C-alpha cells in the first residue's frame, strides 16, 4: 500500500504540468499566443514609428513607457482568457471532485494551477523581448529601466491571474468566468477616472487601489516598494479568496 507522503512535494508540479499540457493541447493556447504576439508587436512597431517621427530618437525610456502602457492592455485582454478555464472546466467536467479525493491539499491545487498560468504568461512574454533586443543591437541603451518595466508587467499579469483564478473557481461557465474577470479588472483599472465625483479622501484610497496608477511607475523605470507590496497583496488576496472558494464545498457540497 502506498503512503501519501511519497512524492508530496511534487504534486504542485504534477498539477502545473497537466494544466500546461491541457492548455497546449488545445488550439486556444496557440490562438492566444499568436494574438498576444501580433498585438504587442504591432504596438511596439507603431510606438517606435511614433517616437521616431515626433521626437528625435533619444528618449528610450519614453518609448518603453508607451510600449508598456499599450502592452498592459494586451495583457488585460489575454490573461482572463487563459485563467477562465482553470477551475471552471474542472467543475463543468466534474474532475474537480476526483481531485478532491486525491491526497493533495487545496493549497497545492491552487498553487499548481496558478503557477501553470504564470508560466504560460511568462512564456508568452518571452518573444516580446525580441524587438527590444534588435533595437539594442542597433543602438545600445540602458537596460535597467526596461527590466523594471518588465517586472511591472509581470507583477501586473500575476495579479490579473490570481483574480482570474478566483473567478474561475466560482463558476463552471468559462465565458462567465472571463467576463466577470474583465469586469473586475477594468473596474480596478478605471476606478480613478471619475476623479471629479470623488472627494479627496476617497480619491486617495482609490488611487492607492488602482492597478493603473501602480503600474505607471514601473513603466518609467521606477521601482517603488509600495507598488511591489501592493501587487503582492492584491495577488495574495485573490489567492486567499480562491482557497476559501474551494473550501466552500464543505457547506455548499459538490456542484
Amino acid at each position, binding site marked *: 500500500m*502506498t503512503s*501519501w507522503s511519497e512524492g*508530496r512535494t511534487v*504534486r504542485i508540479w504534477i498539477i502545473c504540468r497537466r494544466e500546461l499540457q491541457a492548455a497546449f493541447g488545445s488550439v486556444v493556447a496557440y490562438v492566444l499566443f499568436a494574438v498576444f504576439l501580433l498585438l504587442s508587436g504591432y504596438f511596439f512597431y507603431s510606438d517606435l514609428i511614433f517616437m521616431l517621427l515626433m521626437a528625435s530618437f533619444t528618449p528610450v525610456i519614453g518609448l518603453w513607457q508607451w510600449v508598456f502602457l499599450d502592452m498592459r492592455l494586451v495583457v488585460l485582454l489575454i490573461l482572463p482568457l487563459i485563467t477562465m478555464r482553470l477551475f471552471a472546466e474542472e467543475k463543468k467536467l466534474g*474532475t474537480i471532485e476526483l*481531485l*478532491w*479525493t486525491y491526497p493533495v*491539499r487545496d493549497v497545492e491545487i491552487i498553487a499548481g494551477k496558478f503557477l501553470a498560468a504564470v508560466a504560460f504568461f511568462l512564456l508568452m512574454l518571452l518573444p516580446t523581448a525580441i524587438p527590444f533586443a534588435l533595437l539594442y543591437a542597433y543602438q545600445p541603451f540602458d537596460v535597467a529601466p526596461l527590466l523594471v518595466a518588465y517586472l511591472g508587467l509581470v507583477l501586473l499579469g500575476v495579479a490579473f491571474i490570481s483574480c482570474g483564478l478566483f473567478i474561475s473557481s466560482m463558476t463552471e461557465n468559462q465565458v462567465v468566468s472571463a467576463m466577470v474577470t474583465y469586469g473586475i479588472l477594468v473596474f480596478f483599472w478605471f476606478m480613478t477616472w471619475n476623479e471629479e465625483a470623488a472627494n479627496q479622501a476617497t480619491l486617495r484610497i482609490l488611487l492607492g487601489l488602482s492597478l493603473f496608477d501602480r503600474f505607471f511607475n514601473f513603466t518609467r523605470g521606477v521601482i517603488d516598494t509600495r507598488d511591489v507590496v501592493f501587487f503582492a497583496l492584491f495577488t495574495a488576496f485573490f489567492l486567499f479568496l480562491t482557497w476559501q472558494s474551494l473550501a466552500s464545498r*464543505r457547506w455548499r457540497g459538490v456542484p
Partner: protein
Amino acid sequence: MISVAGVSKRFGSFTAISDISFEVATGEIVGLLGPNGAGKSTTMRILAGVFPPSSGSARVAGHDVVADSLRARAAVGYFPERVSAYQEMTVQSYLHYVGRMKGVRRAGLSVQADAAMRACGVDTVARRIIGSLSKGFRQRVGIAQALIGNPEVLILDEPTAGLDPEQVAEMRDLIRSLKQDRTVVLSTHILTEVEQTCDRVIILHRGRIVAVDTPANLNRRVQRAGRIYVEVTAPVVEAREWLARVGGVVSVSDAPGSRDGNAVLTILTERDRDVREDIARAIAERGWGLRELRSVAFSLEEIFLTLVQGDDDELERGTHGANLDHLSA
C-alpha cells in the same frame, strides 16, 4: 476498515444525511441502497474525503477523514457518480497522472496503470483520447482510476449506472474480482444488483439508515406479497369481482388505463403463492380475452416504505400498476 459514527451532513438548512453509523470489515463488499436523494452519494463523498461531515466522525483504514484527511484519502479509491476524466488525455497518460497524484513512485507507475487497465478491460484503448471513448469505456476508465495506487478501500458510486445489461454483468464480475484484499462500498438503486454482488446491504432512506442486513434476509423481509398485472377484455367491475374470488388472491384493484370492456387490474396475492395459472383459468372460464398477465416486482420505493414503516400496509395499498418495473429485472 471503515467506521462511520453518528455522521450527519447539512447543506445550509437542508439535512442530507443524519446520524449515520455503520462499520465495514476488511474484505467485505457493502452496498448502499436507496432511492434518489437518500444520501448515498453524500455518505460516500464523506468517506472519500470530498467534504467533511457536519457532525460525527468517520475513519477509513484507521485514519480519520477530517483530522488525517490526506492519509485517509490515500487509502481510498473513489469512483464518482458523475463519471469524469480529462477529455483531452489518453487513457494511459491519464492513469499515469492519477498515479502520480496518488503518490505512486515513478517505477511502479507503468506497472500499476497496465494492471488497472487490464483489470478494467481498457488496455485495448490505452492510447485513445478519453473524450472519444464510449460511455461504458469511460466508466471503466473511472474504475481503473480508482484502482490506481492499490487503495485498501474502494468507494464506488453507482458503478453500473447507464451501462447496457451486458456491461452491467461485466462490471459486476469486475467488482467481485476486485474483492480479494480490498474493502468495497458501492451504491445502487437496483435491488438485484446488491443481491448479486454484496455481502451486506445498508438501506438508506431520506438520509437515515433503515436497515442493515444480508441481501437474502432483506429479501425475505420485504417479500410479503406477490403482485400480478393483468389485462382482460371484460367489464371492469365484473372482472374485478370474479378474480377476487380466485384462491390466494388478497385484493384486486384498477390500474391506470382501465376502462369498460378492457379491464386493467393489479392483483395482490398471498405470499409465496403463484396464482397466475389459476387466474388465467378463471378468465378463460368466463370466455374473456386475456391480453396480458405477468407478475410485477415491488418497486424499490415501495420496499423502502415497508422498511420505513415496519409493516406491510403500504405494500397492500401501494398498487400503482404503472410505475412498476424499474427494478423488476
